[in-house]
């Protein structure tokens, strides 16, 4: 699923200016993680993933960067803090802001077929058995 599609599903807006939108809208997202606990985020496989979170500080972007996340979507209309925005732009991490709650955001993406980390791992296991 492309980030632009995800944006539509979540009624979200691009954050961080025009370049954020043009550079990132074609980025492919394979799975999704949702957490407000950065220590958990660090244990996720971030490659090709979107992070849904309610936190807006720069540490969210740091954690996303360390875990190789493709983008971060802030829920409940919360806008990332200026340091977070700057860091995300430096590190090429896409930012979206959705007015939806965490639960509603997860539900909509799941319904559209975007898996979480657990299911992606199971799928990979099945594939490797075949």
């Amino acid at each position, binding site marked *: 699923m492309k980030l632009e599609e995800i944006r539509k599903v979540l009624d979200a807006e691009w954050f961080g200016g*025009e370049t954020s939108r043009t550079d990132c809208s074609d980025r492919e997202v*394979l799975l999704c993680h949702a957490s407000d*606990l950065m*220590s958990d985020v*660090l244990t996720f496989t971030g490659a090709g993933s979107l992070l849904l979170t309610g936190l807006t500080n720069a540490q969210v972007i740091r954690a996303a960067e*360390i875990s190789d996340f493709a983008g971060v979507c802030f829920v409940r209309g919360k806008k990332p803090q200026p340091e977070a*925005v700057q860091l995300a732009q430096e590190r090429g991490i896409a930012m979206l802001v959705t007015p939806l709650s965490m639960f509603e955001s997860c539900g909509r993406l799941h319904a559209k077929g975007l898996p979480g980390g657990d299911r*992606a791992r199971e799928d990979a296991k099945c594939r490797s058995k075949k």
Partner: protein
Amino acid sequence: MPEQEITKTQEMVYELLVRDVMTKGVISVAPSTPMSGLREILRVNRISGTPVLDDGKLVGIISIEDFISWLADGGPECPVADRMTADVRAIYDDEPLVQAVCKLERLGFGRLPVLGRETGCLVGVITKGDIVSGLLKNLEVDYLNVEMRGSRSSHLFEDIVADQSLLVLKYQVRGADFKRAGACASGLKTTLRRLGVPPQTTRRAAVATYEAEMNLVVFTEGGRVTVEVEPELIRLKVEDGGPGIPDIEKAMQPGFSTAPDWVRELGFGAGMGLPNIRKCADRMRLDSTVGKGTRLEVEILMEQPDEAERHCAEVGA
């Protein structure tokens, strides 16, 4: 060497466009904003001036100089519109950078508002600082590309003729400096990737360093992170000067935390730091003396190529 760089910079001034280096998401004020409120807006956003927008259209610019002269006049209550410079010189976002350099130089201004060519609306602001950092960033990108071409650690270590080779990276972490927390992990990650260390090994080292760095920032007055890269493994050493951990066994339990609430609000302090580090480590050693300090040593074995392939299959990439 310097000559070549100057030529490169000159080339960039023509190649880069204003929109490549301008600051986007600009703070602006309305013509009706009271002058008395301006100081707070400039202070909070750490800016020395800001465009004045009326329904999206640029109608003026107000700077700290205007504010000072207003103060000198006794600070009479009035809107920004009365004190702003209404005759604004702007620049379009698709003009080459050299235009901005000339315009700033000619007019003696510190900043220029940037307008979209088609809309005529304000899309950003460009300052001398933006131009300098934009050029530096682009020089850095070029330099990185050159650097990337020839440097892979497999080569690096193959090229070194010695019975044993070791690359040592040192980082300082300041206590209570939340803005910079994670900078060391981020720097380490970039460096390891550049050295060609396998992705999964890089990730584990970066995560362990990040958590350790967080502990230094939250609990200590700062400390040192030393990373030793060998062909077979990466060794992290994290040292601080106190306060020390009274009960290490307890501290290692997932969910046990002594972090204050403000740390929890940042998404940390849930008692997962040390357990996360252990998860990333092939070997881990933690020594601590209350009142003296803590020393953490973590070893991560270099992932072998076949493991790397299996990992890729798992991610489904």
